[in-house]
């Protein structure tokens, strides 16, 4: 699979089911126009997000990763986003040592009613990623090409 050449970059979002996924739905219902780059992975809670998913995506060629959960104190599971906040903040500060621009990863909070805010978040983040350009973890061993070919 590939993004649309020249138009899109690979942007992956991990969204909690209860707030941010609903917020993205609300934005859709409100017809709030957004860039098309983002692909959303639905998870039950931002606390479900192992930082390694983010690293996996970034190492795997994602140009940007966005995590969004319920606002602090509004977690459907009461505490998940509090853990997420710590883990993701720690992760963000870790990225530079790998040579990954920390701006390629953001986490934020959007509630199910904040359609406009979601539009703003997606638009801003996508614009930031476009400003940074494609990530360049240089192509790796040939087997990946083979895997890619198989996937096509």
């Amino acid at each position, binding site marked *: 699979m590939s993004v649309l050449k020249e138009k899109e970059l690979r942007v992956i979002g991990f969204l909690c089911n209860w707030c941010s996924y609903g917020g993205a739905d609300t*934005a859709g*219902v409100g017809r709030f126009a957004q860039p*098309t780059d983002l692909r*959303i992975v639905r*998870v039950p*809670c931002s606390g*479900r997000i192992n930082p390694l*998913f983010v690293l996996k995506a970034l190492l795997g060629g994602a140009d940007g990763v966005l995590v969004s959960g319920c606002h602090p104190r509004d977690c459907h*599971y009461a505490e998940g986003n509090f853990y997420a906040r710590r883990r993701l903040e720690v992760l963000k500060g870790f990225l530079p040592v790998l040579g990954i621009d920390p701006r390629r990863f953001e986490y934020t909070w959007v509630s199910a009613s904040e359609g406009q805010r979601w539009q703003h978040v997606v638009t801003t983040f996508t614009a930031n990623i476009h400003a940074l350009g494609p990530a360049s973890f240089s192509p790796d061993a040939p087997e990946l090409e083979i895997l890619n070919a198989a996937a096509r």
Partner: protein
Amino acid sequence: MRIGVFICHCGSNIAGTVDCAAVASKARAYPDVAYSTDIMYACAEPGQDAIIAAIKEHLLTGVVVASCTPRMHEPTFRKTVERAGLNRYMFEMANIREHVSWIGKDIEANTNKAAELVRMAVSKLRLNRELKPKSFPVTKRLLVVGGGVAGIQAALDAADAGLEVIMVEKQPTIGGKMAKLDKTFPTVDCSSCILGPRMVDVAQHPNITLYAYSEVDSISGYVGNFDVKIRKKASYVDWSKCTGCGLCTEKCPSKKSYDRFNEGVGPTTAIIIPFPQAIPKKASIEREYCRQFNTGKCGVCAKVCPTGAIDYGMQDEFIDAKVGGIVAATGYDLMDWTVYQEYGGGRYPDVVTSLQYERMLSASGPTGGHIKRPSDGEEPKDVVFIQCVGSRDVSVGRPYCSGFCCMYTAKQAILTKDHIPDSRSYVFYMDIRSPGKGYDEFTRRVQEEYQARYIRGRVSMVYPKGKKLIVRGADTLMGAQVEIEADLVVLAVGAEAAEGAPHLAEKLRISYDSYGFFMEGHPKLRPVETNTAGVFLAGACQGLKDIPSSVAQGSAAAAKALALLSRDMLDSDPQIASVNLNRCVGCRKCIEVCPFKAIQEIDLRGQPKAEVIETVCQGCGLCNATCPQGAIQLSHFTDNQLLAEVEALCRF
């Protein structure tokens, strides 16, 4: 695996900006996809039938529907595949409407994105496993928290249907805010005359156990089987002996206690029966005002009590109860209006709240139904009502409309004229909000028949000058500054979530908004349910509403609770965590982080291991993200399933 993919047009909602046929054709090349098509309305009956037919014809073992958000139709399609004989979890959705077709007009980009989302769904579905719920027995008893009109209605409806009900009320009497009202709009009928009989019904109903002056201390368990600990606060009166004769309240020498029921309009005694129609009609001592507690010397009530019910040594008592469902009906409180220093911040006695005014109007209130200025007891002639004091006001953190003030202010203006025929009422309003049966007619009547002077504008300042209060406002329709020399100012103080509501929400594990109002399951389609199974909402705790709406919601909550508790067994959601005991090293990290205490340590042949308590697990997956070995996995959102989705997008 044989996967079928269905790309929904949703009429033109999706097909308008996504080439659905192209997406369906791309999907045919995805691994394990045996069948792929586009379809006009997947959720409509012909659409569902087509899916079922395709499953049978192509021997499909899993289905992907690309349509609207799963938050809308996932349950619908799960039932569809179930009807075709598949396990309901062998199904995935790709959201190509809210997340694609509705947010952009670029057909090429949308089509490509939709195809990718379908690919993600297929990748995940390939790793889905059949999940089966377990069933468990239900405790057929309902807890109602809060004894206002909403809670009363819920309790009576449920009890009448044969359910056992436990009602917990924080105050010494039930009745809530409605019991404090003199009359109700738009009929201007007597509030306690219509509420009183209902309160008596609660007391007398064989299926209802009432714990007044009590609070919910803690709640554990889950839908069908909650364990509730109720704290019965020490009233220092043995209610099994108290007959409610009221002798103690007559003789109590401490006569300057704050009268909570009467909103502090007049003082009361330290031992009280809140009002004559109180249920239960029992006395209780307000410790902070009681001489016996403050000086150690008094004991008058104990001396006069004919049944010897006074017990100064009484301690809080705890009661454990098992219930299957819970209705939260904790109502509202008035916001602390004293932040409005420009209205005196509480320094001027003749600036009162609407609820205080209600007590002044009430014949059973401290003034015997005579409107008197608190400062000098004189009858006011010019009464100014100020609306939206703490409503629609961002600057005090209350941007919402309290909803009922316009109506009760109109009612109070009418009652003012009834009580004092030569009085003049002035109402400062921003908008008159009166959508309800007979409501707008009512607000016309107060102006046309009762000559209340409605002024469109806000009041900037109230200050005393001599015996009068100067009200400095604006009439924006006239475009002018106006002043009124008033005798009494009544503030329509905005309402807020009841004190302690967020605290209760934490115990109930339900969400609440930033103002403390409890969140309903869906703002339109699940208005009395919460996202915590078995917990329902009634009345103003969910959002401010007037009496008819509160009563309606009380009945609705009871109906929902009855539907739940009419079943003998319940199914548990199988999307929960489970531990691979072979991989678990017993490091306890999952136990440490679980917000629901749903993981316990067990001993397996001398090795510590983690074990998920299936009925307690809510499926958040925090443990899964914490476990270094990945030994604990959240079903339907396993590491492998999420990795498959990521890998569907990335080369790696």
